[in-house]
């Protein structure tokens, strides 16, 4: 399932009454922008979820070193907030108990249409019931991203 809503919210909140000149240095402005979130789910083809799997994310500007790492939740999911200033192919690895799987997601530079799944991945021998991993990526803008934006970690991502 690919969810793409071209909705970007920008909210600027300012006080309606200007403070005295001497207090301008203390004015506060909040800006909120609904972020793009990529949801990745790892599971084995026998239905087992990759609960607690290690997740490594590689950005296109330095594909050899992890941009961030994390852990999948108890449903094998991981939420990634990519830095859209780094357009190109993002690679996500999920590893657990000696098994690993890879997925690639293309993130565009245009913030109005910033993300598209160009490749979903199923690594493993498709004839194997024991070993194949299936990873599904969901890409979208919207309420899900907003709700989880505030759980964002330094480095730009949060796991669910």
């Amino acid at each position, binding site marked *: 399932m690919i969810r793409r809503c071209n909705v970007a919210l920008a909210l600027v909140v300012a006080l309606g009454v200007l403070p005295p000149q001497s207090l301008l240095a203390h004015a506060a402005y909040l800006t909120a922008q609904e972020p793009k979130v990529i949801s990745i789910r790892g599971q084995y083809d026998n239905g087992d979820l990759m609960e607690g799997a290690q997740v490594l994310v590689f950005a296109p500007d330095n594909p050899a070193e992890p941009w961030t790492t994390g852990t999948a939740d108890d449903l094998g999911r991981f939420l990634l907030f990519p830095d859209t200033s780094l357009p190109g192919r993002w690679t996500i690895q999920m590893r657990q108990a000696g*098994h690993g*799987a890879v997925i*690639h997601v293309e993130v565009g530079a245009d913030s109005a249409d910033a993300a598209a799944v160009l*490749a979903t991945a199923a*690594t493993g*021998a*498709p004839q*194997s019931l*024991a*070993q194949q991993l299936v990873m599904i990526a969901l890409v979208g803008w919207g309420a899900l991203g907003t709700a989880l934006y505030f759980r964002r970690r330094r480095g730009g991502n949060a796991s669910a």
Partner: protein
Amino acid sequence: MKHAALIASALMLVAPAASATTLTLFASGEDLATEGFTEPRLTKDGWALEFSRIIAHVDQVTAWQSEPPFMGDGPDIEGTALEFGGPFTVDLVDADDADLVELARIDADPGFYNALSWALSPAPQGEFEGFSLVFEGIARRDGDEVTFTLATRDAILHACGEYVGDTRKGFVTEDAGSELEITLHLDHLFGRADRPADSATNLEALGFDAFADGGMHEFTLGDLHVGHVGEGHCHDQTM
């Protein structure tokens, strides 16, 4: 004299970059090969295995720069090929501290080598002629001790995606070489007592009970899918 010094300096600058632009091929049976199956990582049926040799015969090895990335989901890899060739005969027990055995190092153009194809194939000659994978060692359980040799004649072609492991491998630059790895997952053969008995790997693994009378046994790899690239999977098919 000044010219000679300049030339020497230039060579010193150029030589390291040229020598670094290589791709090195390793093979590994991981720590289950070098350390054996020990408590709590016994075989699925409770045997401790100590290997004296694990001989694998590998051939037709090719590294690939595939675009779009090959995902190990079929037999055919499309992209730029770099041949390691073969054959290579390797003892996975005689490995370095990282459980790796170097097979070959070749010059490589810069790029990301994100796929690897290789064949586990029977040795055409030598001590284990006709066998592609041989285990020698001692098995122990409940005071019993069994000396064994397990061997398969299976020939299996592997088409693998990118290496998956602690580091991301395969990036060759102008300044630095890289490496790729053929990895054999021995738990797919023998199972793991520290994993659930109803896990997919343990349900399919051979275990050791079938070989408990010791001596020489032949086995088939069947659909056990022992061949990997680190933790990354491969498509495999019988040759």
